[in-house]
């Protein structure tokens, strides 16, 4: 029996390639960080929507039965019958400051503003906004992880940045200025609507800021709820979110709130998570609830479905065309996601349109992701791996 010391001894102790550590680069990166660094705060860690989304999407499962998508039932905005595009082309967006990679995470419904982040050469993260084909770095305070999540038609963007070891803070970017959202000692902002209302969380409670300068209101949750987040807000003020990472929930403009329906196949219990909302259409995922002992990924090793809800009628549709993904939804109820065989897809009513990548995807089912979808279904934002395997921010134009 080898001793504890001998056990690890065979490990290589020397890197085999020459050092790429660059001291002048460290100095210049540090100077830049110092220049954009803001005040420091304290608080607690929280769960990000991105991580939740991933939790749902990472899970592997057998394919569910196919149910065709239904046309819009009721609408408040002009979502008249639009013909599905025949095909889409890809356009690479500029990456600011020569960063090696970047991605588009959110967009306004008209497809004019896009937000996300880049991965600067010096390491770390940099929030970015794109408008008219120009990329601009948004200096969120903090030199740790950051992301702009969403932007509205006026170009007001929201997101979060870690300003301390485990402290995310919600921020809004408006008229060239970054402001911290008031009323929380830690938290995140995930979405903003046409009127500038913002939703997010403080690590435990779902929050609604009625404007970028107003203090937040806690959205009501049923007794016994441990943690809840609000993930998106519609132009009419409807908010969606998830309770305890398993109950899809909606807060309606009339002040009522309730859980959304989940699949009830074979009498099995399901759990669901909501990600995006537009014009009454909400998208998310649902998985079979496991036994008491199982948790997390294990718990969800059963069936995982992509789901679309009409939050006004309560109608629920299993989206069989997608592989457990709900990346975006528009005013017509069209969706983007990852197809059953991999690759980014647009689902426009019953039409499934493939979105080409910058480079052949090879074996990577997730090389291309369509994270945003305009109301007219013509402009999609997201990310695509280039030939060197670097994530690039892209738009797809569909005709």
């Amino acid at each position: 029996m080898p001793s504890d010391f001998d056990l690890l001894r065979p490990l290589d102790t020397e890197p085999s390639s020459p050092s790429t550590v660059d001291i002048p680069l460290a100095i210049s990166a540090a100077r830049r960080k110092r220049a954009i660094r803001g005040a420091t705060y304290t608080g607690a860690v929280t769960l990000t929507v991105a991580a939740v989304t991933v939790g749902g999407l990472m899970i592997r499962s057998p394919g569910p039965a196919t149910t065709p998508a239904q046309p819009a039932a009721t609408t408040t905005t002009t979502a008249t019958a639009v013909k599905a595009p025949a095909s889409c082309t890809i356009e690479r967006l500029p990456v600011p400051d020569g960063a090696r990679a970047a991605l588009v995470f959110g967009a306004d419904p008209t497809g004019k503003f896009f937000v996300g982040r880049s991965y600067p050469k010096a390491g770390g993260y940099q929030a970015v906004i794109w408008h008219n084909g120009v990329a601009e770095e948004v200096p969120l305070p903090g030199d740790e992880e950051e992301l702009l999540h969403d932007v509205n038609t006026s170009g007001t963007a929201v997101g979060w940045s870690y300003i301390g070891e485990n402290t995310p803070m919600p921020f809004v970017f408006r008229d060239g200025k970054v402001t911290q959202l008031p009323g929380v000692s830690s938290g995140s902002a995930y979405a903003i609507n046409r009127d500038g209302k913002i939703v997010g969380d403080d690590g435990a409670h779902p929050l609604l800021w009625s404007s970028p300068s107003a203090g937040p209101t806690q959205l009501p949750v049923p007794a016994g709820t441990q943690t809840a987040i609000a993930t998106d807000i519609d132009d009419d003020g409807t908010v969606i979110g998830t309770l305890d990472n398993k109950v899809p929930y909606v807060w309606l403009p009339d002040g009522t709130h309730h859980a959304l329906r989940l699949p009830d196949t074979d009498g099995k219990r399901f759990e669901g998570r909501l990600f995006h909302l537009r014009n009454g259409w909400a998208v998310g995922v649902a998985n079979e609830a496991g036994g008491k002992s199982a948790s997390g990924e294990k718990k969800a090793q059963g069936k995982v479905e992509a789901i679309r809800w009409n939050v006004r009628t309560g109608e629920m549709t299993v989206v069989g065309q997608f592989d457990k993904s709900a990346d975006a939804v528009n005013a017509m109820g069209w969706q983007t996601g990852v197809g059953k065989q991999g690759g980014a897809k647009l689902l426009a009513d019953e039409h499934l349109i493939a979105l080409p990548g910058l480079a052949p995807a090879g074996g990577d089912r997730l090389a291309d992701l369509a994270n945003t979808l305009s109301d007219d279904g013509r402009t999609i934002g997201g990310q695509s791996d280039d030939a060197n395997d670097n994530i690039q921010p892209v738009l797809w134009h569909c005709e």
Partner: protein
Amino acid sequence: MRDGSEKEYIEYVSARVPALRRLAFLLAGDDHRADDLVQQTITTLFLKWRRASAAEHLDAYVRTMLVRSFVDERRLSWAKVRLFRHAPEPPPLEPSAVEDRLVVRAALARLPRRQQAVLVLRFFYDLPVDEVAATLGCTSGTVKSHTSRGLATLRRLLGEPELAATI
């Protein structure tokens, strides 16, 4: 930073890069990730140089920065947003097909990051429990439990099932 202390910083870092790369490589098991860790560490060090250079044990201070960067899973969460292109589980072990070092490396990579860091610091750097605890910002008791759990798992993964149960 004034010229004098910048010069000190450059001298210190230049001298320490080889040692930091070794530590980063032991932890990360990958040249590129190791260099990323070192780059990240020395960038932060520049920002904190005035305070750090006054530290009684500067090497330990810098080592702590690097180890904490490694164990801090959240720093890697961009990889999740980038959307789980690589499965989170490392590939299964194939002891017969590869050299010892690769087997041990693969086994180590299957442990939680904190356990990896504890094992490397204790058994490669011969650091005492309390110093590992200070480096990771946890209690000595936690270091001990990480050590025993990490070793047990490692022995099991390396094909010593009968021993795993006794630890």
